[in-house]
Every structure is written in C-alpha cells, then in structure tokens.
C-alpha cells in the first residue's frame, strides 16, 4: 500500500470556523456602522479609521518582528478589529497624531505587554480610548455634528453630544422638559443624526451588525442583552422617580455608546467572561456602572469606564462562577 495513514486521536472532524474567520466576521458586522459614519461625518471618518487601522497593524507588526522576535500574526484580524473599534470610539475630527498615540497605547501597552492576543485583561481599544480621553480632553470631547458626506476633516462644525447637553443642563439647574428642544428626537438618534464618536451614533447600523454576529454565531446574546437590559431597567427606575431630572431609558440607550459598547466592546472574547452565567453578571455590571457614571459621575458618558472596570473582575468570575454542570442537581421527573 502506497498510502501513509495519519494517526491521531478523535475527533477526526473539525468545524470550518477559525480565529481569522471570526475576526473578519466582526469586521463585516462593523461595516454598516462604518458606512453610516462616513455618510454623516465625511472625510474625517475615513481618515481617522484608516490611520487607526494602519497604525494598529503597524505597531503589532513592529513589536512582534523586532521586540518579541516571534512569528508575525497580524493577518489573524485581531489588530484590524482593535483598529476599527478604536476609531469608532473617538470623534471624527481627532488629529492624526492623537490617533497614532491611541493606537500605540492599545496595541503596545494594552495588548502586547500582556503577551498578545488571548492574554490581555483589558479591552485594548478602550484602554487606548481612555488614555486619549485623559491626555487630550479637549480634542477628545469636541464632537463634529453630522454634516453629510462632503464634510471636511478638522474644519467640521462641532457641538455637544446629547449626553453632554443634559449633563450640563441639569448641573445648571434646568429640567429635562426645558432641555428637550436641544436634544435630538429618538428617531434622529436611532438613525444617528447627533454628535458623538465616529462609530457609536447610528443605532440602526449597530443593530444590523448585532444581528449578523448572532446569526453567524460569533457572539451570543448574553452580554449585549444584559448590558442594554440593565441600562434600561436602572434608568427606567430613575425616570419613574423623577422624569424632570433623569432621562428616559430610550434616551440612555440611543444616546452615547451603550449599543456600540454592549454589542462590540463588551463582547470582546479575550476580556469577557467564559460562561453564560458570568456573562450575564458581567453585562449587568457594565450597565449599572454606565448609568452611575452618566448620572452621578464627572463624565457625561461612562460605557468605556464601566467595561474596563468589569474587565478587571473577569478573572475572578472565571475562577468562581461555574457553568451548570450536567448531573449537578438531581432533578428526576
């Protein structure tokens, strides 16, 4: 017999899914939001996204090639996803040099120092974003208002985000019914016609991405639904107590980064918990912390901080919260 038989242990079959396919699946899910962003913010969105993606890939390449002297794995798609998500979390008129610094912090500090893909405790894109927010507070909070495709880059007209408007207004003693004319309608927010980070504004585009991720089975519903659900429940309680002081759940979900955070940031494989039980606890933690920061904290938006704080609890949850074992509870029927 001329054949040489391969010997290995079972299983002898493997699903077609690979790390790379999953990562590129996330990229596809991000495309609707990227396209709406280009539609609303014009050239700025294209420039910031391209710079962010290119510099994330470049830093990962340089570090793997020259610092770690390991095989280069930038084609696995993970740095591409980090680059896209970093861009999604900043204003579309952010100067290029800040984007590059943010990319460096994301890849070099938040990812590679911990050992690269699979080992970083904190979401790299969010570490980069928070670093930029603290280091460049002015640039990071000047939000271009949607001006259409022809909008320029750094010369875009800027305005406040809906969350910043109500935070400022309430601090100055105004009530929500007085502020209502300054904030966009729910329909406008759903379509993304408001100031905000490049990728967070259009709820509809993010939801399309969510459906794609669910259908492709790249993520499960547990984290996104528990984040959005806990934001909704918590803000509904506050709103029912005093609708003049606390905004409605609808507003809280559509304004700012709840959807982007819940669907794309909190579901990051590496930094989220490993089983469904802890995923729900983790998601609720993010939702509750987000509302606390938004309502009582110094910043108008709290999704990034909430996710990073909950990231810190993930190792603990993995160690102590276990999935339901088969044969664990004896229920005979």
């Amino acid at each position, binding site marked *: 017999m001329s054949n040489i*038989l391969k010997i290995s242990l079972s299983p002898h079959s493997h699903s077609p899914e690979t790390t790379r396919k999953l990562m590129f699946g996330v990229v596809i899910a991000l495309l609707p939001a990227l396209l709406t962003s280009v539609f609303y913010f014009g050239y700025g969105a294209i420039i910031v996204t391209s710079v962010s993606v290119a510099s994330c890939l470049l830093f990962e390449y340089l570090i793997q090639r020259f610092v770690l002297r390991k095989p280069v794995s930038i084609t696995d798609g993970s740095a591409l996803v980090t680059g896209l998500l970093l861009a999604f979390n900043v204003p579309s008129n952010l100067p290029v040099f800040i984007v590059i610094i943010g990319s460096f912090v994301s890849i070099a500090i938040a990812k590679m120092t911990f050992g690269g893909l699979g080992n970083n405790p904190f979401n790299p894109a969010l570490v980069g974003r928070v670093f930029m927010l603290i280091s460049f507070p002015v640039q990071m909070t000047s939000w271009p208002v949607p001006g259409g495709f022809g909008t320029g880059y750094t010369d875009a007209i800027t305005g406040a985000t809906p969350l910043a408007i109500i935070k400022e207004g309430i601090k100055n003693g105004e009530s929500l019914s007085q502020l209502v004319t300054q904030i966009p309608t729910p329909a406008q927010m759903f379509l993304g016609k408001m100031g905000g980070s490049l990728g967070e504004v259009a709820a509809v585009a993010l939801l399309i991405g969510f459906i794609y991720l669910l259908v492709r089975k790249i993520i499960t519903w547990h984290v996104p639904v528990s984040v959005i659900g806990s934001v909704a429940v918590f803000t509904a309680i506050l709103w029912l107590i005093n609708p003049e002081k606390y905004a409605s759940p609808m507003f809280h979900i559509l304004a700012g980064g709840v959807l982007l955070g819940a669907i794309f940031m909190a579901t990051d494989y590496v930094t*989220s918990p490993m089983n469904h039980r802890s995923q729900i606890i983790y998601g609720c933690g993010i939702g509750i912390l987000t509302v606390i920061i938004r309502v009582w904290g110094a910043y108008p938006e709290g999704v990034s901080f909430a996710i990073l704080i909950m990231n810190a609890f993930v190792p603990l949850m993995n160690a102590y919260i276990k999935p339901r074992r088969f044969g664990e509870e004896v229920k005979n029927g």
Partner: protein
Amino acid sequence: MLKTFPIGGVHPPENKLTAGSKIQKLDIPATVAIPISQHIGAPATVSVNKGDSVKAGQVIATSKGFVSVNIHSSVSGKVNKVDTLIDTSGYKQTAIFIDTQGDEWLETIDRTDELKTEIKLSSEEIIKKCQESGIVGLGGATFPSHVKLTVPAGKKCDVLIINGVECEPYLTSDHRLMLEHGKEVLVGISILMKALKVNRALIGIENNKSDAIEHLKTLAASFQGIEIWPLKVKYPQGAEKQLIKALTNREVPSGRLPIDVNTVVHNIGTAFAVYEAVQKNKPLFERVVTITGKSLPKPGNYIVRIGTPVNKLIEAAGGLPENTGKIISGGPMMGKALINTDVPVVKGTSGIILVPQDEAGRSESQVCIRCAKCIAVCPMGLEPYLLMSLSQKDLFEKAEKERITDCMECGSCSYTCPAGRPLLDFIRLGKSTVIRMSRERVVK
C-alpha cells in the same frame, strides 16, 4: 418541539452517504483473526488449540468473570495459531487465527429467516444467554449486555431506553437495521424488556431518519409498551446520559450509572443481536458495518464476520482510493484511526470511514482567544479550555475538582475550537491521570 438534551452540542455535517444502501453480505474471508478481548472487562480465556476444527458459532474463548463474555468462531475451519496482532486501538493483543473451510454453522443455530416472536426464556435465562452468546453493546462501547441487564440489589429499572440515534456522521448501520430488520429489532427489545421486567421501552431516533421512525412506528403498534420518539439532530444525542435526559428528563448524577435513575440503555444493534441469540440460538459472530468515505467508489452497509480484516471490506466497496489519508474505525467524532488495513472487524466496529488526505490532518494549534465556544458546546457543562490548561500544567487535583472525569470524550470542544487547539487530547491525559490517582487513593 423535538426532544433533545439541554446543554451544549454541535452539528457536524451528517454525510450519511450510505443511508439508502441495503445491507449486503460480505464474502467470508480466507482467514479471520478474532481478538479475545472485544469487550470492556476481562479478556476471555482461549479454549481451542492450534489445529482444532471449529464451526461458526462455536465458543473459542470463554468468559472470565462476570464482566466478560464468550468469544465465538465466526467461520468454520481450522485454528491456525493463537498469536498477537494490532487491533483497532493500536495496541497488540491476543487473537485466534482461523483458516476458513466452507461455511458450517453449529447445528443448534436456526439459519432460517423465519421471524420468531414468542419469547420462551425467563428473565434469568435471557441474561445467561446473552453472556453465553457474547452479546456486548454494539454502539461502540462494547460493555457486556448481561451486566446491564442484571439490576443490582436495591435498585430498580422502570423504563428501557433504546438508542437508535446514530448521531455520529457517516454511520448508517443502525439506520439500515431498523429499516430492514425492524420486526427482529422490536422482538429483541421485547426480550430485553422481559429480562429487565419493565413494561415500557422508549426508542430514541434522530429526526434525520424519518423513514426508520415511520417504519418502526407502524411495526410497534403490534408490540406492547414500545414507543418511538423522534429527537432533534444534535451531536452527541446518542451519548447515554444525554439520551436519558432527552427522553425522560432524568439526569444521571456525576459519577453514577443510568440504573441510578432507574433506566437501562441498549443500542439498536444490540437489540438485534439479542433477538438472534435468544430466538435463533445464534451467538454474536457477525455484525452490520458501514464502509464509507467521500472518495470510495461503492460505499455501503455489510454484514461482516467478526475477525474479517478491514481490507476485505474496503475491497468490496471498490478498493482503497488513492487519496486516502486516514482510516477511522467508528465515527469521525469518537472513532479510532487505524494503523493499517489488516486490523480485524470486531464486535465494536460500527463503521469504517476512509478520509481523503486533505481532510485527514489537523490545523495548527493557535493561541486560545477565550471565545468560550468550548464551554458553550460541552454537553456535560464542563470548561474544556480550563481542563486543558490544568492538564498541561500537571494541576490534576484542581482538574479533578473541575470534574474532568465527567468528560465522556465526545470531542465537541476540539471540533468547535476556532483556534484548532487539541483540547480533548489534553483532557484525556488529565482524565486518565486523575482516574489513576483516585484508584491509588483507594488502595492506600
């Protein structure tokens, strides 16, 4: 809603190429090699010598102890030698080599096709008959059937479960048995019910075999207490604990047996073998084997004498394709890769799959991205990524606490892992070490 098990599971491509192929008889080979250990438990003791003449159905190795069964000659002829050979597992073991002459069966065996429905033997006699006739679980685990039929004191069985799931891709031997020998299978089930003294039996069949479900439903109308339940197509639906959960909603506790939740599970092929043993006096010396593969010219289902070398089966199916990269005995999820084609068909051989070269290898193992898919698919609710890393780091006490011994090695984790990590390889290592450690503790 079709019934199924609640946690985990995967959907590998079904590839049931031979679902429509009628069972054919494979020619008797010139020599057979019959291993003396074809079951879980003590190997049988050789009871023939070189030069002895034997007939098909004659005992050539006797059971040694309770968890052991007789081994019978599958052909008539002369014992050539008792020697070692490499079996399905890849290890050497003792086998009896017989040169075939003619096809003479023991006179006590009823060789007609006549269906015998009247069960004359008592419960105890049936159990004894099973051990004498060499009946073992034919789903692949080969646990001696009489042991499962002997309900220990203080325990009771109230329902018999029959496994017609055949959830492994490619395999169709049980499917064809249900279609072509449905009546015999149902009589076999009635015999098992009598042995266990139960009046209810549930047959679980995956919904991709609708013809078998309909056929058995029609036939079962004239049998007492046999119900047919279509099940959702999901691997590993045919795993004992998962099947019991799906059909009765009873959950076998960790480390316990089906009898602890008042059930006993037998396979379709076993029910057929029990019919032949009890009604036809025919010991287990042949079985239905699926021979299949994407490049094989004529895949099919064959009745094969135990001890027939696998290459005879491959020849009958059109010869070994050029591009064969791996030969699996059993299904692609839990089967064993064969070392060569001289390996004999044994009682546990449900199928032989020829895998083309481009599907035979494994992809390179990459870093764990903590996607948690291995946890989501584990039907036992374990954490494969953790068990693998504990085994790699020799943290076996911790692995034991994480219930590594609950793993039934279904392979869903390795199948799913997008990083191509060999999860099950390391879990096996950890599991066997933990089992050895706990045995040593008992000895101390």
